[in-house]
């Protein structure tokens, strides 16, 4: 009897989980005035005459769906704008990979069946690393908006050799974020001099930034007084915070995603510990988090290539269009995705590729373009790529003031 009960309990839990996974996507699908996604066959055949088939996968359901939805929305927005302009035309399909390597491979196969010619690869890192070799094998060009791991562009991680060559990144790599953070802190000594770090040691994004940051910090004369770790879904950081406080840290570096960061901010406040909080791009999204008291994030610094309050026309247009269509403020993932589509459009235009070419032919043309062109977008100006697929652009530091990002003037 007991045995049966346990079984039933476990299965009920599974069902509940799968339902929760669904609810993640429902919030953003409400204002669906979009016509560009349709994967039904009638639409495909109509548009196939002159449109490039742009694919991509990301977590549209499940825990990381915030990122996937942001990328999907922004890419759709960019595709609509570009199609309206005339010239290069796109047809865009985003598949769900649930932030899972196995599902990402399936999603890639589904896109391949659809006839994808150019790709946004994946939104998150581990799935990206799983499909990158497949893109290489099939010679399909891919530009990932936010897959920041080095494993996405290099087959040999130890020597950083053997790049795939046709997989490019729009965002910084994890190590670059570590280097940039150390650079920023060492040149802005007014923020503090003793650094404590709390990072997630079962997450490759977090450990990647941490390892590089510590190396760089030593070279740049920054003093790292404490490094604390957590794993999984831990939500008690009192031990790490009191250790950081006891070691006299006046900067708390948080190379982690925003969910645990929000808990850390809350618990630090409860224990009256107020160092300068410094995050990287994973911190982006904290203000949009449901149920988060944004006053806790006042004065938090983060290194991100995009801030929604920037005053240039490009950003203003993008933010207002995005808000009109999807009802919330775009984050950096959205901006990266928007830039990706525009960069691909620019390269396609310049290369003279046509939509009836095969994916491999387009791939050759695009690789040539991407390694030689300069791109100006939301997330940076004079953006270039090297032959390994790494992006080169300047990171921007922003500080959160009155619940919005404000660019920090150097």
């Amino acid at each position, binding site marked *: 009897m*007991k*045995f049966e009960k*346990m*079984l039933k309990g*476990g*299965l009920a*839990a*599974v*069902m509940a*989980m*799968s*339902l929760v*996974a*669904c609810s993640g*996507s*429902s919030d953003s*699908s409400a204002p669906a005035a979009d016509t560009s*996604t349709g*994967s*039904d066959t009638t639409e495909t055949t109509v548009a196939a005459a002159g449109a490039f088939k742009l694919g991509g996968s990301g977590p*549209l*359901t499940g825990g990381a769906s915030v990122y996937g939805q942001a990328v999907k929305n922004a890419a759709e927005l960019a595709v609509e704008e570009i199609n309206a302009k005339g010239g290069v035309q796109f047809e865009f399909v985003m*598949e*769900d990979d649930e932030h*899972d*390597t*196995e599902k990402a*491979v*399936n*999603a*890639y*196969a*589904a896109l*391949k*069946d659809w006839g994808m010619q150019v790709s946004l690869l994946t939104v998150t890192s*581990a799935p990206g*690393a*799983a499909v*990158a*070799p*497949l893109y290489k094998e099939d010679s399909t060009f891919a530009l990932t908006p936010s897959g920041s*791991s080095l*494993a996405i562009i290099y*087959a*040999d*991680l*130890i020597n950083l050799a053997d790049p795939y060559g046709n997989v490019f990144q729009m965002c910084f790599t994890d190590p670059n974020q570590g280097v940039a953070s150390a650079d920023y802190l060492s040149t802005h000594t007014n923020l503090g001099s003793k650094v404590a770090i709390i990072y997630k*040691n*079962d*997450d*490759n994004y977090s*450990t*990647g930034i941490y*390892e590089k940051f510590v190396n760089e910090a030593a070279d740049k004369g920054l003093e790292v007084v404490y490094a604390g770790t957590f*794993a999984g879904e831990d939500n008690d950081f009192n031990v790490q915070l009191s250790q950081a406080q006891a070691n006299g840290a006046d900067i708390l570096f948080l190379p982690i995603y925003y969910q645990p960061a929000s808990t850390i901010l809350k618990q630090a406040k409860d224990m009256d510990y107020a160092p300068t909080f410094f995050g990287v791009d994973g911190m982006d999204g904290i203000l949009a988090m449901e149920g988060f008291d944004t006053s806790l994030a006042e004065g938090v610094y983060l290194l991100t290539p995009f801030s929604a309050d920037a005053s240039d026309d490009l950003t203003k247009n993008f933010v207002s269009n995005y808000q009109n269509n999807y009802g919330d403020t775009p984050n950096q993932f959205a901006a990266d995705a928007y830039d990706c589509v525009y960069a691909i459009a620019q390269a396609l235009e310049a290369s003279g590729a046509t939509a009836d070419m095969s994916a491999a032919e387009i791939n050759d043309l695009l690789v040539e373009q991407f390694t030689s062109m300069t791109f100006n977008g939301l997330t940076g100006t004079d953006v270039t790529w090297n032959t390994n697929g790494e992006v080169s652009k300047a990171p921007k530091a922003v500080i959160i003031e009155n619940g919005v990002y404000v660019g920090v003037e150097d």
Partner: protein
Amino acid sequence: MKNKKSFVGNLFSRTYRSRTISFLIIIVGYILIELLLKTGNLSSMFQSLLVPVTCYIVAALGLNLNVGVSGELNLGQAGFMSLGAFMGICVSGALSSAIPNGLIRLVIAIVLGALIASVLGFVIGVPVLKLQGDYLAIVTLAFGEIIKSLINNMYVGIDPNGFQFSFVENKLSLAPGGKMLISGPMGATGTNRIATFSVGVVLILIALVIVYNLIYSRSGRAIQACRDNRIAAESVGIHVANTKMLAFVVSAGLAGAAGALYGLNYSTLIPAKFDFNLSILILVYVVLGGLGNMTGTIISTIVLVLLPELLRGLQDYRMLIYAVILIVMMILSNNEKVKNLLSLLHQKLSFGKTKEAEANE
């Protein structure tokens, strides 16, 4: 002539019918898929699902032996898969220059993956299976999580000097020509994808042979006796702990083999993949297919792995529909009326058969 007939008749006799059907499904399915592959009629999506489906079937068959036949709930099947997967990746990586042939390396990896999972299954089983109650469920649940955490913090590399290990932080400095096999939370990257569908099918067939031979053997009857009435089983001289151990170790070994095949099918594998959810997923395959019913396990695994992929066209609604279908299937398969209807259908069908048989005679 008469002999042959009785052999075929024997295959479809009450006792062995389910075994024959299981083997038929796998063999016919394999031939069909190979035909589709050869004629180029199989979409990339189905091709990418072939190997994972075989892995899940093997792991689910093992779990069914443990949950259905032996009656011990195991919530750590993903942990055993994880062990097998990372063992397989390390073995394949280490032997890549010594044995260039992918098939041989794959077989060695699968054997060693099964071995390490069985050994750990044995170690866990020794204390736990002596207890009565749901202790195995609790311990295997913890075991799965422990394995995940351990591999998350493990750094393994290989260079000309041999294997190099480090724990928690990556302190490895590999000699030139070395490569990382497992790098902590990043898992294994750059794995040679040597897993093939044919090997997966052979693995299923081996799993079926092992499981059915065990069920139909003296030990198998002892296992079921322990499940149905422990005291009665003990009273006729069956060593309950050892008997249950047999089912548990075989189950763990099959999961390890499935894991090795799975790990070598992807260029990147993160330890977090083998979490509690995966264990439950495999348990769902088993329960939906019917406890102790191997044919049912095979069918339910195939359906449940394919379902979310086939529903891709429905975009955002697919996970919702998947959950609804899952719940409906669970309710229906346990509903008395549906059961009665099915058994009625079954009776009618078998009546038809006996009449046919009579007419033949």
